[in-house]
């Protein structure tokens, strides 16, 4: 058996992601959440995901994470105060703990999502169909996955074009900045509508839903490694769930 799991069936990856995300919700204990995060990172690495890109994604959320910890501290209103400005408790030990729980859950979900990006979108749709998910629903999911990077690229280009027009968003007062953001919506909405129209025409031309039953040339089959990984995932899931219940 090889430790490189890049060729796993997308359904296996989906099961792993469901297990990890569920654990992120059920676990309260910080150490357990850290363990789940570590497991998630190992799965990302083994399934061929790029840890470097993932960490750079994490970096972008640092301010949000800090804000979450402060907000938890302010609104929890219990525990020992670690930092206080005037009458406002900016940091308490309970707030810090709850903030860290939220941050770790967030990190686990982001990292687990990266596992799904290592699967081919066509295979994901095929996997869902073989799980008896209606084709139309599975197809919509695939389209969303397929078009997200394209929309991201367009949004970046549009923002760049606006800045090249001499608009320095960092120097504009907040109210005017909101007005400026409304200008960004115009090209993005136009592009989405044009793409939706073109795609619907292309689908009609290729006789989408001409017959109620669809057949597939390519079918997915679980390999022995898939069964092994699914059983291992379920066992670990139950073990960690039990640990979460004991420690809570």
């Amino acid at each position, binding site marked *: 058996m090889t430790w490189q799991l890049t060729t796993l069936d997308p359904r296996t990856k989906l099961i792993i992601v469901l297990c990890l995300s569920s654990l992120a919700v059920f676990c309260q204990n910080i150490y357990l959440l850290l363990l789940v995060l570590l497991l998630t990172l190992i799965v990302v690495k083994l399934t061929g995901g790029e840890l470097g890109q993932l960490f750079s994604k994490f970096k972008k959320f640092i301010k949000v994470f800090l804000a979450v910890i402060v907000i938890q501290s302010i609104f929890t209103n219990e525990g020992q105060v670690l930092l206080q400005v005037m009458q406002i408790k900016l940091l308490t030990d309970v707030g810090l703990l709850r903030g860290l729980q939220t941050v770790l859950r967030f990190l686990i979900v982001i990292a687990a999502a990266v596992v799904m990006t290592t699967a081919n979108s066509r295979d994901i749709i095929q996997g869902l169909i073989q799980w008896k998910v209606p084709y139309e629903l599975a197809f919509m999911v695939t389209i969303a996955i397929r078009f997200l990077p394209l929309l991201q690229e367009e949004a970046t280009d549009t923002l760049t074009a606006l800045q*090249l027009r001499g608009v320095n968003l960092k120097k504009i007062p907040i109210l005017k900045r909101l007005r400026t953001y409304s200008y960004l919506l115009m090209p993005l909405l*136009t592009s989405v509508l044009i793409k939706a129209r073109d795609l619907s025409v292309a689908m009609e031309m290729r006789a989408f839903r001409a017959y109620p039953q669809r057949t597939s040339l390519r079918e997915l089959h679980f390999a022995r490694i898939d069964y092994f990984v699914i059983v291992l995932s379920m066992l670990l899931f139950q073990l960690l769930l039990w640990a979460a219940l004991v420690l809570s």
Partner: protein
Amino acid sequence: MISLKDVSFYYKRGKPIFEHLNLEIPSKLITFIVGPNGGGKTTLGKLMAGILKPQSGVVLVDSLNTKTVPLAELGAKVGYLFQEPERQIFAATVRDEIGFVLSLRDKPQGEIATIVDAVLEQFQLTHLAAVSPLKLSRGEKQRLAIAAIMVNQPQFFILDEPTTGLDRERIDILSGVIEDLQQRGIGMAIISHDQSFVRRHAQQVITVAGGEIVDVAAYHP
């Protein structure tokens, strides 16, 4: 003048697009960037405009380092026309599209109207002033995008595949716009596959292939 000094750039580590690239684009000439698909033409254009930042080396636009100067400031020097003009059209009418940046800068309404009217006339868009940009043809959208950039009075333009999707008549109109810009002392770098368009306007041709500058040649029609 735009200078690239010892520029290296990659989208993905380990797969460089350009390595130790040195290039100077004269400020008053029309320079065409030609070459096969995937050769790095658009990447070069975006590096020149400051949209992409090199991992090493420097790109200087009139001695401004694109790594350190904000895009908004570079936009006053260099205008960039994307291959898809829809991506740089923001407002609900042609008139607003040209004027909204000025209103964000708190220019008086009277002054904005004068500037917008002059630009509309220069680009033969006056009759379309109240029309939604969505209803324009591709050629008109391109003209509108260039007109909107002109409000910033840039000294240099970078146009990415401006003739794509245009018929001969629309290309002639675009040629008129390019000649007009050149008469106003504005230099240009144009990324293009259209050989007849290159022959018509080129004063210098840079051939890019496989991430390398294969040839830089003065062009004499």
